[in-house]
């Protein structure tokens, strides 16, 4: 997952096509096939059907960040992207993980669809 996050940052940090291509080549040369497949899936703009309702995500993020509903709304209005708003509001994580991209998608993200609320949370 860290390698994919680095790739995304590299693509985001430059406006030059050659540098984007270089970053892609670097990533795909080193990534395991299962990760590469998901990387292509996400980078080509696709995303899995909603796994957790947005309304619940917002409510849980609001509680975890220790803010009020209206403060969450004001923040979202300023940022313009829900995932980024949540990422900016949540406390910085104290731990990190070296699990690969496909593990996060297949073992963590997708099983949340239809899971009970306690597990989703």
């Amino acid at each position, binding site marked *: 997952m860290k390698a994919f996050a680095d790739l995304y940052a590299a693509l*985001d*940090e*430059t*406006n030059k096509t050659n540098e984007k291509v270089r970053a892609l080549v670097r990533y795909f040369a080193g990534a395991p096939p299962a990760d590469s497949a998901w990387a292509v899936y996400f980078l080509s703009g696709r995303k899995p059907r909603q796994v957790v309702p947005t309304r619940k995500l917002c409510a849980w993020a609001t509680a975890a*960040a220790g*803010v*009020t509903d*209206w*403060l969450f709304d*004001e*923040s979202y209005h*300023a*940022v*313009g*992207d829900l995932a*980024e*708003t949540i990422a*900016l*509001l949540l406390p910085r994580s104290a731990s990190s993980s070296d699990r690969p991209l496909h593990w996060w998608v297949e073992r963590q993200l997708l099983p949340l669809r239809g899971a009970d609320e306690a597990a989703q949370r």
Partner: protein
Amino acid sequence: VTTTPLLQLTEAGLYCPAGDFHVDPWCPVERAVITHAHSDHARRGSRRYLAARPGQRLLRTRLGDDAAIDAVDYGEAVDVGGVRVSLHPAGHILGSTQVRLEHRGDVWVVSGDYKLDRDPTCAPFEPVRCHTFVTESTFGLPIYRWPAQEEVVADINAWWRQNRAEGKATLLFGYALGKAQRLLAALDPGIGPIFTHGAVEKLSRDYRDSGVALPLTTYVGDVPRGTDWAGALIVAPPSAHGTAWTRWFGAASTGFASGWMRIRGTRRRRAVDRGFVLSDHADWPGLLDAIRATEAERVWVTHGYVGVLVRWLREQGLDAQGVQTLFEGERDESGDLPEEFAAETEKEAGA
């Protein structure tokens, strides 16, 4: 407790009727107390100014040779029309100050712009107890939480080193007064030569004249044509970005150091390669900490996310109200100041 408030908002800005003076007036007045030298706070044309001594050199550049400036040390109390006035470090830029007013036992503090983070180019913010605190709110949303500045500085150094390895110049944008000098003082001059835009060079000279140590810099205008800029760092104000001026440097990576870079969309709209979250203002936790530390019962909120901060403070049980100022300073996303003032700044600085 007096019946008339110690400060009131007039068409010229915050006014103290008991002492007959203004704080950071927007137009010429008889007597002005100035919190810092940014052009939306220090306006020309008033008859007499009172300011903190460390910022005297900068204010002279801003206000002109004819301006009558009374400089006082931090913490030194003076009597202005019967009101006891003292200035206390705000940590925003060199010479930036909070203004403490005391009259018949009533104490007010006007924060000006401030930050709680350390800054090698100015005295650190000092909490001052008061009954009423007038605070800025530039970054008054909980999404604005600053990363540790050592990490940000390390990121900028690493980026500069990498650009050098790739044979590129490093073009770093930051507001010409304050941010540019903070960057110069913090970055590693061992990586490569450092050049400056004219506005940055002129204000950096004022910093050096005021006793602030900065690494060696060279004004780009003093460099012969045909110079190889690979590996060099060029520090310039945000308004220089996207202008023909930047083409001098050939292949360059661009970066912008500002609190606004916390939001991806803001960085993308600026079309810079890298955004570095480094601000001379308090973040959301910093604003709340600073307000708490004053122990004020009443808070006036200016400059920024006024409505948001007022509502939050009221929900915490404080008597808070918004004070709309003429200059909504750094609310503008394009730089550290609205473009017209940024442009004026560079004009003043002769670049």
